[in-house]
């Protein structure tokens, strides 16, 4: 008999049908009677003092119901989840700090009127000098964005482990390189949307495109001066998040504020242009990295200085600069490690988490440099990775405890692509091919700050179906299905017996949301426990009916039977009905909660085990370069990911394939083109901001490598963020393999390729 009946199966997602029919409601699709439409007024200047805002003309426009500015707020500032020292007002107070900063908002009877009203708000600005380059921003005398941050340094980390200088002395090859990465948009297709309604009991009900509704739940009451439970956050379907829909943003707050002002429901939907030009993005970085390696390929030491151009506000920047250092050496054994990380304020769009949060940048630098070193030492790029790969039971110098780890297996399988070389045959003179590898490790369910607890309830319906209630959000990654499969397995039910319940802060238990690849691991454990609790409650009744001990009962295939005497059995539905209807009746409601036992790491010095477990993986790319035009085509990729156990292999593959879209985009296509002198992106559209289309994507072989984690639910870890961490270096290393030159700034454009080749020819 197979071990599991639901877990590990390639089952369709629980939400797929309503998404296929268009019935799934996203925040922008929702409407309430009497609803008003809100719009934001944004700053046209990168840095300016607000002298006066005159809303009179806008207020007098027929159809306008309210206009709000900072003076209508309590001055609450958001951002900085770690220290709680937020620096970003929902509506700009004394200053604006980038083009796109929100200044005022309007609610009107329809969108057209709201738009028109924006044109009638008169803001008087005193222009201030602005700074866009992070290195310039750190210089003495640079324009200061925030009074509290000298040299515009929002935060820094100084990590010192072992003795890097000694490590370099023992090395046979030491390289120092500077790598730079570009700003990258999350590029979810669904722009931010929020709908809020304030009722006469003083309660706000809110629907929004939030991948972590809990953040809004916690922030909104503070920002509006309400009691916590006077704010109710209800989750609609989310059109992708990738880290960009975690925080509570201006529109979320403002929709609620406008609803309080007008007494009507208010909806605000951003346009994609607003998202791309004023929304969050991935931190661009300047990375100076030095790595020392012995003749045999052993990594001796890594030293790295990273300046992250974080934009106008802190957001989750403290975490970013910590992760860039603490995950710098992952997935390798590195005895000596030194890191100086700075997150710097500039008058640019604000940066936050994005799939892989800070780690894709450092992996690009470290993995690319590793290939350059391997070449100098004449070691195969795959071998150098295998040589240094972390193994189960290892501890890293900064204190990460590696429990399960399938990196070696991932690398070995990735190595199978070497046979692709034999398929190339003779290439035309203007075509070059290459293959490359990238390896990685990532956290799964980290301890960030505050709590990381997840709660779950499993409600058993009278007909034998169940509802799984959690606060964990499916932003598209598939967690609802994953959690449902866990619950179904525990209760021996088919997945079709699970009814989908969206998070609702009034109903579903505590859960911080979707980030840090925590949902499967942390919320999954909570659901497992809750389902098991429900099972125990039913087993008590079943034991009586079947004349056995509760522990002897097995729940499987919608039957309940006695383990050693399967003849003694009954259908699950019958058991449920007996439990619900006999005697006083019972409410079968399983309850579970889980938090990994972790200390909060030291974000400044980097010490501590931030995550209960770590995922690992390897990606391999094959590219073809046209040396006439410099264009790179990624022809094939093979991606392997140690996700612990694949609760649903099809969905793990989907995550891996999606990660190639994000990673390939960052490697080759995506960039914010900066216009002169304003820091504003010149390409705030999907026409000019080039996320990959179907023709730009290679064929992908994807595979989940299972290691069965000791703590994860059914042994599962994560397959959300980690998967995208090394797509970029797999591609850049393949280009390096093809051409023998490494392009050290992203994206690797055709022009950079041609220039690098030109330079190479000159030398």
């Amino acid at each position, binding site marked *: 008999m197979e071990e599991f009946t639901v877990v590990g199966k390639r089952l369709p997602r629980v939400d797929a049908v309503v998404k296929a029919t268009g019935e799934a409601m996203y925040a922008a699709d929702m409407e309430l009677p009497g609803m008003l439409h809100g719009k934001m007024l944004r700053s046209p200047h*990168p840095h300016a003092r607000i002298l006066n805002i005159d809303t009179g003309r806008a207020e007098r426009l027929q159809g306008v119901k309210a206009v709000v500015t900072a003076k209508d707020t309590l001055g609450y500032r958001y951002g900085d989840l770690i220290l709680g020292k937020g620096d970003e007002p929902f509506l700009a107070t004394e200053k604006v700090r980038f083009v796109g900063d929100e200044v005022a908002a309007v609610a009107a009877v329809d969108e057209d009127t709201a738009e028109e009203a924006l044109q009638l708000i008169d803001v008087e600005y005193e222009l201030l000098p602005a700074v866009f380059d992070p290195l310039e921003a750190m210089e003495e005398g640079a324009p200061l964005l925030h009074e509290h941050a000298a040299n515009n340094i929002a935060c820094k980390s100084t990590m010192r482990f072992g003795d890097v200088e000694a490590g370099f002395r023992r090395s046979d090859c030491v390289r120092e390189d500077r790598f730079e990465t570009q700003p990258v948009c999350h590029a979810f297709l669904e722009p931010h949307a929020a709908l809020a309604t304030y009722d006469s009991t003083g309660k706000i009900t809110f629907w929004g495109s939030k991948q972590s509704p809990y953040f809004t739940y916690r922030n909104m009451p503070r920002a509006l001066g309400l009691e916590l439970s006077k704010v109710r956050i209800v989750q609609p379907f989310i059109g992708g998040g990738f880290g960009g829909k975690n925080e509570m943003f201006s529109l979320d707050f403002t929709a609620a504020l406008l609803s309080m002002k007008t007494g009507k429901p208010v909806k605000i939907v951003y346009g994609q242009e607003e998202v791309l030009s004023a929304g969050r993005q991935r931190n661009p970085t300047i990375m100076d990295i030095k790595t020392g390696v012995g003749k045999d390929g052993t990594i001796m030491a890594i030293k790295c200085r990273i300046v992250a151009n974080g934009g106008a506000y802190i957001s989750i920047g403290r975490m970013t600069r910590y992760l860039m250092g603490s995950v710098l050496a992952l997935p390798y054994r590195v005895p000596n490690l030194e890191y100086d990380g700075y997150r710097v304020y500039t008058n640019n769009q604000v940066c936050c988490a994005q799939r892989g949060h800070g780690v894709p940048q450092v992996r690009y630098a470290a993995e690319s440099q590793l290939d350059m070193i391997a070449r100098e030492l004449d070691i195969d790029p795959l071998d150098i990775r295998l040589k240094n790969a972390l193994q189960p039971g290892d501890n890293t110098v900064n204190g990460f405890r590696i429990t399960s780890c399938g990196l070696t297996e991932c690398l070995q399988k990735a190595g199978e692509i070497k046979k692709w070389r034999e398929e190339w045959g003779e290439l035309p003179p203007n075509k070059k091919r290459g293959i490359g590898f990238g390896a990685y490790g990532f956290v799964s369910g980290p301890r960030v700050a505050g709590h990381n607890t997840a709660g779950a309830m499993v409600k058993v319906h009278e007909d034998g179906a169940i509802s799984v209630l959690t606060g964990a959000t499916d932003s598209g990654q598939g967690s609802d299905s994953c959690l449902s499969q866990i619950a179904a397995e525990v209760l021996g039910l088919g997945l079709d017996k699970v009814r989908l319940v969206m998070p609702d802060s009034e109903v579903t238990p505590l859960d911080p949301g979707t980030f840090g690849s925590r949902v499967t691991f942390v919320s999954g454990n909570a659901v497992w426990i809750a389902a098991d609790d429900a099972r125990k409650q039913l087993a008590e009744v079943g034991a009586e009916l079947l004349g056995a001990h509760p522990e002897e009962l097995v729940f499987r295939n919608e039957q309940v039977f006695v383990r050693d005497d399967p003849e003694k059995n009954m259908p699950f539905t019958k058991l449920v009905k007996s439990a619900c209807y006999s005697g006083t009746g019972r409410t079968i409601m399983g309850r579970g909660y889980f938090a990994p036992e972790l200390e909060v790491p030291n974000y400044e010095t980097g010490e501590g085990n931030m995550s209960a477990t770590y995922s690992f993986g390897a990606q391999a790319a094959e590219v073809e370069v046209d040396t006439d*035009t410099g264009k790179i085509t990624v022809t094939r990729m093979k991606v392997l990911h140690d996700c612990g156990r694949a609760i649903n292999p099809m969905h793990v593959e989907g995550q891996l394939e999606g990660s190639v879209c994000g990673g390939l985009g960052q490697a080759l296509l995506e960039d914010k083109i900066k216009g002169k002198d304003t820091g504003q992106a010149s390409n705030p559209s999907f026409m000019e901001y080039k996320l990959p289309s179907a023709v*730009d994507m290679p064929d992908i072989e994807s595979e989940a490598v299972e290691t069965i984690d000791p703590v994860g639910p059914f042994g599962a870890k994560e397959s959300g963020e980690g998967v995208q961490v090394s797509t970029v270096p797999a591609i850049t290393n393949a280009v390096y393999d093809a051409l023998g030159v490494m392009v050290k700034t992203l994206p690797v454009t055709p*022009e950079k390729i041609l220039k690098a080749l030109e330079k190479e020819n000159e030398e």
Partner: protein
Amino acid sequence: MRRMPRFEYHAPASAGETASLLSEYGDAARLIAGGTDLLISMKQRLSTPEHLISLSSVTGLDAVDYDEKTGLRMGAAVTLASLTQSPPIKDKYPALEAAARKVGSVQVRNIATLGGNLCLDTRCWYYNQSDYWRQSRPPCHKTGGEVCHVVEGSKRCFAVYSGDTAPILMAMGAEVKLMSGGGERVISLGELFTGDGLRPNAVEPHEFLSEISVPPPAAGSGVAYVKLRLREEVDFPIMGVAARVTMSDGAFGSAPQGFKVVLNAVGSAPVEVEGAGEMLAGKAPEQAALEEVAQVARASVHPQANTAGTPEYRRMMVPVLVKHALTEAAAAASS
């Protein structure tokens, strides 16, 4: 992006009605064909006409006819999709079919028209933006101001023309018919383009483009359009090159008129490389001959930093694409 601005909508049923609406409303009116370009610029408030005159119900304006003697005639409102599916075009003008296929996506081509593609407005990083985006700077020449954000101190506009069907049609010697209440005039497609970034085409406010005609393909001639872009579909060209060559006995034909090389998306109009015919006629179709044209082409353009692809890269690519286009055209002529 803003919602659409207000306007009055007219859907004339005939060419005559179209002409009279145009003379009635003059500057206050704008023609809309597919609208795939115009609607975006209206949302961006680059264009806020009081009257919109739709060409989509004008009878006969989407016709495609082929005659062995007179060649191909295409109504201006034919969609790019039907152009790619039209038997005479697939059969006799495969390079035109291929060029049309390189415009936008399936969905765009299903609505976008040939006339709209030829009358496409010029593009620039500082122009094709919403009114909100543009507030951060003073207006430039093309939005009614006095400055250019691309070339500082310039008195003119450098916005780029990038319609993908124009170069190949120019290479094939196409002519266009402009209609108005006062009658019609026929000009060469080359003459349609003014080279002025502000007003890229010669269609007067009271006129509309009604027909595009292409001579029958000459014996031994081949045409090709190569388009460079970062993403292989949907994107506008970083640049493009169309070429026409005539071949005879494995060499280039002897008549210079048999050759044409047209560069796209490097200036405010498609640019014909001067003297290409003289450089190629009678030569062996080898790299050396192509190289000369390629270098002349490179020297003839001055792309600016206002669209995807840096000016430097686009200049670097001119000779490369010219050679590709000529090679492809030669191959087409020989097959």
